[in-house]
């Protein structure tokens, strides 16, 4: 009887999960495997159309990727970009969450408003930023030249190194609400008693933050760092829409896109993606190791 029940449970569980697993497998897992296979082939679109996955195997793509200076440049850009946006968005999100911790008038509606950059369509917000930063008719340059006395309008999105900086600022703007949302939830969950005890013991507000509040937030911060790093490492839309990858903003995924659409070098693009995934995987493993204690806490 018990074993029949267990068998039924097993069968029902598998039945209920199968549809989702099939969709995810077809759309995500198969393409990833395909990518890995293609990265070992010298394939263009025509070859894939003719032979499918059965082309000659080679390591050429990997030697090409690893010996191309442009790849290492893209990797460096990706790392700079991901670290800067991750640190920036979490720091701003933390400051925001602390500022919004205690009640004040209009707290709830203002908190809702602060999440707008995150929920709004990326195409619309990047477009607004492009227009606002445009050298001819953008409000930022008009303000800079007419009010602040800049000599020339700044090409925010089309000259290095401001382009990368601007993309980073945009992404901090877009993603700080995400950190704000999570850290806000974590702060609500904290018990106030420990903090009150610290105040009774004579802790200053900054000491209270540093020794009492922050340590309790670290698990959430660690999780956010992980999440944001992975997402920004693979970020494509924000960079592509703002600069198209020009002016020193070619991050890895934009490079992959250009290899695919520009030179239709499927093998090379797949190899680039695979190498990047390996880097990300190694970085993740190290990070998980280092923060294992924190996450258990």
């Amino acid at each position, binding site marked *: 009887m018990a074993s029949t029940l267990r068998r039924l449970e097993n069968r029902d569980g598998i039945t209920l999960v199968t549809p989702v697993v099939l969709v995810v*497998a077809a759309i995500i897992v198969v393409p990833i495997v395909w990518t890995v296979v293609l990265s070992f082939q010298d394939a263009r679109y025509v070859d894939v159309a003719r032979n499918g996955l059965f082309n000659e195997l080679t390591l050429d793509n990997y030697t090409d990727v690893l010996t191309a200076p442009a790849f290492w440049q893209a990797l460096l850009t990706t790392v700079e970009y991901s670290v800067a946006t991750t640190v920036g968005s979490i720091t701003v999100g933390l400051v925001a969450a602390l500022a919004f911790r205690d009640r004040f008038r209009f707290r709830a509606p203002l908190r809702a408003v602060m999440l707008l950059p995150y*929920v709004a369509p990326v*195409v619309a917000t990047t477009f607004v930023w492009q227009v606002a930063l445009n050298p*001819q008719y953008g*409000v930022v340059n008009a303000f800079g030249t007419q009010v602040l006395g800049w000599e020339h309008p700044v090409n925010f999105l089309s000259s290095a190194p401001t382009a990368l900086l601007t993309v980073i600022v945009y992404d901090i703007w877009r993603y700080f609400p995400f950190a704000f949302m999570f850290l806000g939830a974590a702060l609500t969950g904290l018990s106030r008693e420990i903090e009150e005890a610290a105040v009774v013991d004579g802790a200053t507000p900054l000491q209270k933050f540093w020794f009492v509040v922050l340590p309790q937030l670290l698990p*959430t911060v660690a999780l956010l760092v992980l999440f944001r790093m992975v997402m920004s490492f693979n970020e494509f839309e924000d960079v592509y829409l703002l600069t198209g990858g020009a002016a020193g903003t070619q991050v890895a995924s934009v490079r992959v*896109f250009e290899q695919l659409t520009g030179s239709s070098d499927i093998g090379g693009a797949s190899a680039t*993606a695979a190498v990047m995934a390996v880097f990300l995987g190694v970085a993740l493993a190290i990070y998980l190791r280092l923060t294992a204690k924190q996450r258990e806490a």
Partner: protein
Amino acid sequence: MSTVSTQASVLRVLRVVVIVALVVATVVPFLYMLSLSFVRIDDLLREPLRVLPALERITTETYAEVLRSEEDGGYGFARFMRNSAIVAVSASALTVALVVPASYAMTRLRFAGRTQVSWLFLAVYLFPTIIIAVPVFVGFQVLGLGSSLVGLVIAYIALTVPVSVHMLRNYLAGFPESIDEAAVIDGASRFQILTRITVPLALPTIMSTALYSFMIAWNEFLFALLFLSAKQDLWTVSLGLTRLADGQEVSKTVLMAGSVLLTVPIVILYGVAERALTEGLTAGADKG
């Protein structure tokens, strides 16, 4: 004591400064978007610093122009919006239909491969979407689904499933299994438990999951770019806006009206369900 009070008063001031600065930084780009959408392009070119148009110069012609179909000399945003709505509504309905039973199984039932399934969903985030998008596109072409809204919907389901499962699982894990057990004793079948108990109890979270996947589908750009670039009559709003912005011929303020049309549905939905959505996404964050 004096350190305590100095710090406290400095922080009190800083807090106000921070709140004002952040609210301004988040809101101003949206106000700029809204304001420019009512401006004639020559007015913008003449006076870029004039963010709020003079009352008598305000125009709604931008909206009329962007919404009109191409045959009538417009840019067809009305049709783009219909396409986006079809895609987003179907993706979100199908996501919910798939995710509810799966999340139920993953929180309530012990079955072979349960942990592996959780890991599978995480793998989604390890590779850039661009590399997933291309094989999917090629595969769909073979099946005749490339360059179609159906193909796009299927792709969007896969993109939203992992986070949706996470949201629902956290919620379902929060209420006691004894409810299910009581139902079993009363002779309820698995299907009855799912439809009569789990769904009604989890309805708020199901709604926020639906909203989340609607937003992802409505906002998405890369898959739409790869799938639909060649078929202008199937463009979504996001794709239409970027395609038109790439050229020089469409005036920026007309496209600003397009951006407003792209943003407003999301802001309305979000306004209705803000609380449910943030609670759904951050479920479990306080536990670390």
